[in-house]
C-alpha cells in the first residue's frame, strides 16, 4: 500500500472503509538469514535498513507482545542530537539526519516536527558547560545556539525567570530538534520493512537460543516453535539482561523504570521541547494539547513497568519551578517503561562473545531519538560483521578497556545516568 494525497482522497471518497493493513502480520518460517529479537522501534528499523540498504530481505522481527508495546510506545517522543562526547555526537547526528528524511524513506507520516529543543541554564557554571557542548556540536556540523536571557524571554515569555533559587539565565537551543509521533515510527518501519519482504511476527516470545557444537547461535526457540537463523540480533531494551542470560552472558546493564506523564489538553502553550536545567524535567506539548513530560528514572532496579510517587512528585515540582501557572492543570495519565541502563550511560552496539549473536542495548532513557540511527548501524553490523564508523565506540568491551562514554561523568552507577 503506497500512501499519497491520491490514496487519501480515494479513501476519503469511500468513507475511509477501504484502508488496507499497513503491514503483514506474518507467521514464522523455519529459517531466516537474520532474526531480530524485539519488535520495537530499534528492531524494526534494523530490519528495514537490512532490507533497504544492505539487500538482506530474508529477515524476521520477533516481538513477544505487539509491536511498539514496549518503550517505543512509552517515551516522551523527543528527538535531538545535542551530545558532547566523541562517539555520541556523531552517532546522534546520523540519527537526526535519518529522522529528517524518514517520512520520504518510509512513505509514512511519522509526524517529525523540528520545532526546537531548548535546554535552560540557571547558573554561570551551567552556561559554560552548555557553551562547551554547543561548540562541540557546531564543530561537528550540528546546529546549536546559545541564547541569553533576553532571547529566551522572547521565545518562552511565560517561564518563572526570577525564581529565587533557580533563575533562568539562558538556554542552549537546537532548532532541528523536536518530536516525532512514536507509534507512527513503529508502524512506519513495519510498513516499509514488510513491503520489502521482512516478516514482522507478533506474540512470539524468545525462550532460548539453539547452538551448534561450537557454541555458535543457530537460531532461537520461541513460544511459536524453533526458528533457525544465520545471525541473531537482539534489540530488547529493558529485557536485554534476560535475553542475554539465555546465551549465558552477563551484561554491564541494569533495568530501571522511567515514568512519563501527560496532562489534560490545554491551548497551545509550549513552542518546542524545553528542559529545566536545575532539576530534571523535560516537556513538550502534543498536537492534541496535552503536556508530555518526564524527569529522572525512579532509581531502583525494576521490570514492573510502573513507578512510584516520589519521582512523580519530583517531576511535577520541576514543572512547577519552571512554569508555576501549570499548577492547576490536571495530570491525565502516567506510565512506566523499563530502561536498559548501561554502566556509562551510553549504548552498546556490538558483536557479543557468543558467535552469531549481536547486541543492541544499553540505551538508558535516550533510545527513542536514536531509533533510525540505531537501526542503521545495527543493520550495518549484522550485514557486514563490522561496526559502522559512527558506532565504532559503542563496544561491549569498553568497560573492560576503560574507553567509557560517560556524558554525565557518574561512573558505574546506572541509576545516576
Amino acid at each position, binding site marked *: 500500500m503506497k500512501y499519497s494525497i491520491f490514496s487519501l482522497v480515494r479513501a476519503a471518497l469511500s468513507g475511509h472503509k477501504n484502508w488496507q493493513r499497513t503491514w503483514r502480520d506474518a507467521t514464522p518460517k523455519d529459517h531466516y538469514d537474520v532474526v531480530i529479537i524485539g519488535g520495537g522501534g530499534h528492531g524494526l528499523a534494523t530490519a528495514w535498513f537490512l532490507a533497504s540498504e544492505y539487500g538482506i530481505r530474508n529477515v524476521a522481527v520477533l516481538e513477544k507482545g505487539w509491536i511498539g508495546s514496549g518503550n517505543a510506545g512509552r517515551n516522551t517522543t523527543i528527538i535531538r542530537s545535542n551530545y558532547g562526547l566523541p562517539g555520541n555526537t556523531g552517532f546522534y547526528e546520523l540519527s537526526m539526519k535519518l529522522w529528517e528524511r524518514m517520512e520520504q524513506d518510509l512513505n509514512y507520516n511519522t509526524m517529525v516536527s523540528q520545532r526546537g529543543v531548548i535546554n535552560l541554564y540557571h547558573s554561570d557554571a551551567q552556561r559554560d558547560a552548555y557553551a562547551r557542548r554547543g561548540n562541540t556540536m557546531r564543530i561537528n556540523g550540528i546546529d546549536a545556539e546559545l541564547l541569553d536571557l533576553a532571547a529566551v524571554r522572547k521565545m518562552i515569555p511565560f517561564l518563572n525567570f526570577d525564581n529565587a533559587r533557580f533563575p533562568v539565565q539562558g538556554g542552549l537551543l537546537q532548532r532541528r530538534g523536536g518530536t516525532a509521533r512514536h507509534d507512527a515510527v513503529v508502524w512506519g518501519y513495519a510498513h516499509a520493512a514488510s513491503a520489502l519482504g521482512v516478516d514482522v511476527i507478533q506474540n512470539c516470545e524468545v525462550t532460548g537460543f539453539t547452538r551448534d557444537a561450537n557454541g555458535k547461535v543457530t537460531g532461537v526457540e520461541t513460544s511459536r516453535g524453533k526458528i533457525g537463523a544465520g545471525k541473531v540480533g537482539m534489540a530488547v531494551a529493558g529485557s536485554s539482561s534476560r535475553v542475554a542470560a539465555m546465551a549465558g552472558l*552477563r551484561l554491564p*546493564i541494569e533495568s530501571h523504570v522511567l515514568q512519563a506523564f501527560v496532562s489534560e489538553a490545554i491551548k497551545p502553550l509550549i513552542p518546542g521541547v524545553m528542559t529545566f536545567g536545575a532539576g530534571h524535567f523535560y516537556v513538550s506539548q502534543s498536537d492534541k494539547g496535552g503536556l508530555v513530560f518526564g524527569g529522572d528514572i525512579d532509581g531502583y532496579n525494576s521490570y514492573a513497568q510502573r513507578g*512510584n510517587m*516520589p519521582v512523580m512528585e519530583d517531576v511535577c515540582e520541576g514543572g512547577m519551578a519552571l512554569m508555576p501557572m501549570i499548577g492547576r492543570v490536571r495530570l491525565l495519565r502516567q506510565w512506566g517503561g523499563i530502561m536498559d541502563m548501561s554502566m556509562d550511560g551510553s549504548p552498546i552496539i556490538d558483536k557479543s562473545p557468543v558467535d552469531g549473536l549481536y547486541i543492541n542495548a544499553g540505551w538508558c532513557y535516550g533510545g527513542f531519538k536514536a531509533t533510525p540511527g540505531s537501526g542503521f548501524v545495527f543493520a550495518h553490523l549484522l550485514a557486514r560483521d563490522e561496526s559502522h564508523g559512527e558506532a565504532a565506540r559503542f563496544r561491549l568491551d569498553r568497560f573492560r578497556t576503560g574507553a567509557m562514554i560517560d556524558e554525565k561523568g557518574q561512573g558505574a552507577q546506572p*541509576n545516576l545516568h
Partner: protein
Amino acid sequence: MRIVCPFCGERELGEFTYLGDAKPVRPEAGASQDEVFDYVYLRDNVAGQTSEYWYHGDGCRAWLNVTRNTLTHEISAVEPATGAGARQVAK
C-alpha cells in the same frame, strides 16, 4: 512502595536512597583485573526476587538489606545491612 525500616517502622520510599544489588562482594586488594571488572561493571540484573542495599537517609541513616521482587516491587524482608551497627542490633 513503602519500606519497613527495622529501626523506624514503615516509611515512604522518598526517605530512602538506592545503592543496588547486595550480592557482589568487593574483591580483595590483590584480586585479578577480571574479578574487579566483574564486580564493578557486570550485573545479574535479576527479574524476580533479589536482595539489595537501601540507605535510610531521611530517617535513621542505616544501611538496609531489602529483599524485593523486581517484577512486582513486593518487599518480603528488610534487615540491617551487615556491619558494626547491624551486629550491635543483633546482640
